């Protein structure tokens, strides 16, 4: 039952906000925005008829009019609970870069971090070559929507051969009721440079729509570790798309933790050049009526690429999880080595998961595998713990916790790991560890 999607209220409100959007005087950006607007006008929000969206109904986005705001009110104590001590940080409040809350002092000259507004106000020739190049408006109409609506974001560039000593944390924070926080971020890791970026999505408003698009460029032999911790408010809607261009010999390590929001969609797409590697890990936890969609697409374009994908899901109550993992091996991508695995744990009879691994192989000399499981906790494991004195509810929590914690365990950043560990423990309160 596809609800007819109507983008009209958003389109009607657009002219009033357009002039306040950054880059109004840049013809190339105006073209991107107008093109995005046209795509959005033609298609509305993606709907169930679209193969890539067949499990995820975005009708709710039409029911509430989410609007941009320049409100910057925030409870900083609450924010600080998510801030990592040992990291530089950028804070985007309601989709706008906050220079007062961001902590960038002492940032070395090799690392440039600017708000998208500032970057567009300055000499934007370099940015022009990046923005809209890792992903185009044709990707789908939420990306097009983001192109038209993004009000800010962050532009990061790491100089060649430089290895960042500390990670950069990007806190996407929404505090204003029914806000639309649309951001576009551009990340450039130059040749042989290495960086770690941690994205946190949080919100103190009850309901809002956070829509972020990241365009990442890994130049030859560059390395990027990118963590995404989506812990949005219970009733929030979330879209986060990360689109990566990997030059030869580059390495991408992505971790996607999808814990919050009532409706969440994450896209990860990477285009791999010669001998580049990408590893994408994910953990989605759904409870109550949460709907969490994860979409990954790994494009092996050139020979000798390596990709590893490991996603786990835990769905309780009436929650629904979606995993669509596509691996495309182009004709030229000989000697590709690719593995994909998705394991799901259903904790209730009403919980549901749609998992769809897709391998499309056009080269002949490749090593590709994929595997999917959907199951419940094993009763013999529950009984084993009970037979050692652990009550049944705790036994189930311990086993669920252990299943999910495998993904948290892969996090190398100790502070982030502790933060995620706490989240997990709150969801599955096993006895004290």
């Amino acid at each position, binding site marked *: 039952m596809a609800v007819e999607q109507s983008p009209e209220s958003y389109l009607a409100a657009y002219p009033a906000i357009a002039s306040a959007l950054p880059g109004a005087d840049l013809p190339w950006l105006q073209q991107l925005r107008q093109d995005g607007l046209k795509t959005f006008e033609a298609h509305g929000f993606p709907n169930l008829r679209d193969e890539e969206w067949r499990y995820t109904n975005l009708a709710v986005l039409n029911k509430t009019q989410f609007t941009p705001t320049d409100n910057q009110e925030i409870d900083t104590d609450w924010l600080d609970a998510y801030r990592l001590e040992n990291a530089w940080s950028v804070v985007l409040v309601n989709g706008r870069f906050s220079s007062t809350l961001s902590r960038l002092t002492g940032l070395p000259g090799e690392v440039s971090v600017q708000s998208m507004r500032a970057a567009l106000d300055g000499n934007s020739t370099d940015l022009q070559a990046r923005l809209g190049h890792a992903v185009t408006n044709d990707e789908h109409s939420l990306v097009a929507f983001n192109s038209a609506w993004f009000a800010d974001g962050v532009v990061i560039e790491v100089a060649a051969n430089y290895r960042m000593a500390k990670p950069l944390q990007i806190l996407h924070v929404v505090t204003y009721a029914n806000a639309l926080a649309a951001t576009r971020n551009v990340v450039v890791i130059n040749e042989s440079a290495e960086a770690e970026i941690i994205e946190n999505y949080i919100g103190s408003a009850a309901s809002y729509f956070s829509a972020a698009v990241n365009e990442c460029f890994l130049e030859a032999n560059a390395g990027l570790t990118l963590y995404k911790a989506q812990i949005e408010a219970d009733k929030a809607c979330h879209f986060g798309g990360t689109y990566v261009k990997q030059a030869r010999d580059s390495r991408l390590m992505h971790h996607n933790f999808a814990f919050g929001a009532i409706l969440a969609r994450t896209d990860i797409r990477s285009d791999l050049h010669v001998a580049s590697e990408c590893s994408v890990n994910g953990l989605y936890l759904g409870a109550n009526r949460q709907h969490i969609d994860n979409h990954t697409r790994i494009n092996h374009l050139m020979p000798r690429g390596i990709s590893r994908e490991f996603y786990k899901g835990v769905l309780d109550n009436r929650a629904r999880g979606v995993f669509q993992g596509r691996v495309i091996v182009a004709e030229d991508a000989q000697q590709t080595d690719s593995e994909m695995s998705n394991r799901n744990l259903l904790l209730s009879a009403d919980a549901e998961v749609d998992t769809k691994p897709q391998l499309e192989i056009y080269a002949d000399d490749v090593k590709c595998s994929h595997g999917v499981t959907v199951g419940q906790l094993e009763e*013999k494991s529950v009984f084993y*713990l*009970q*037979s050692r*004195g652990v009550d049944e509810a705790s036994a189930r929590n311990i086993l669920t916790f*252990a299943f999910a*914690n495998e993904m948290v365990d892969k996090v190398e950043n100790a502070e982030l790991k502790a933060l995620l560990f706490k989240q997990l423990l709150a969801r599955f309160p096993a006895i004290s560890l």
Partner: protein
Amino acid sequence: MLSIKNLHVSINDKPILKGLTLDINPGEVHAIMGPNGAGKSTLSHVLSGKAGYTVTEGSVTYQGKDLLELAPEIRAREGVFLAFQYPVEIPGVSNIYLLKAALNAMRKHHGLPEVDAMDFLTIVKSKVKLLQMDEKFLYRAVNEGFSGGEKKRNEILQAAVLEPKLCILDETDSGLDIDALRIVAEGVNSLRAAERSFLMITHYQRLLDYVIPDVVHVLAEGRIVKSGGPELALELEEKGYSWLEGQAA
């Protein structure tokens, strides 16, 4: 300690135990032998409270309480311990975590505070040593990737830490090499105490050479068909079970 009277147990309406009677006094070691499929593991599971078994007749009294009324975890906290014939692998849960969770659950049940972290480590490490295990096993996931023998040894490690009152060993000796058998048997012997009883299910006399039982029973076709002293095990080793068919104790 434990008194089983005329116990009848079915699985999916199929009778497995058919009038089993057995009494174990504090401090006693009872061995149960019997052919495959006789119902030995069924007995151990019913005693520890596993779901899927229907008691159609009879009673089990443990320390004066109706054991069958208690939830599995309560039985464990009251001192019933089952060393499984097939120990379960629990990925993601470390041995040391389970030991601590189990010990604290038991202490809480008896109104005691949580075990002090340092004391706990001292206790656990001494037991690891007793069973000649590598301390690394403590930090590995419970039974995950353990060899058959390592799993059995790990079960006895848990028993050594939890100090149960009734210790049911379901074929703990099967799959152990000669050295491991000796170590596990020594572990069991070190646990023997005036207030602790053992129910040892085994197919082999060689375990009983190390852990000398007070009583040996033969379980066949769902009931105890013969009981005797340690010499009964030797007789069984020699003659098998067929000569007992049709007999009842």
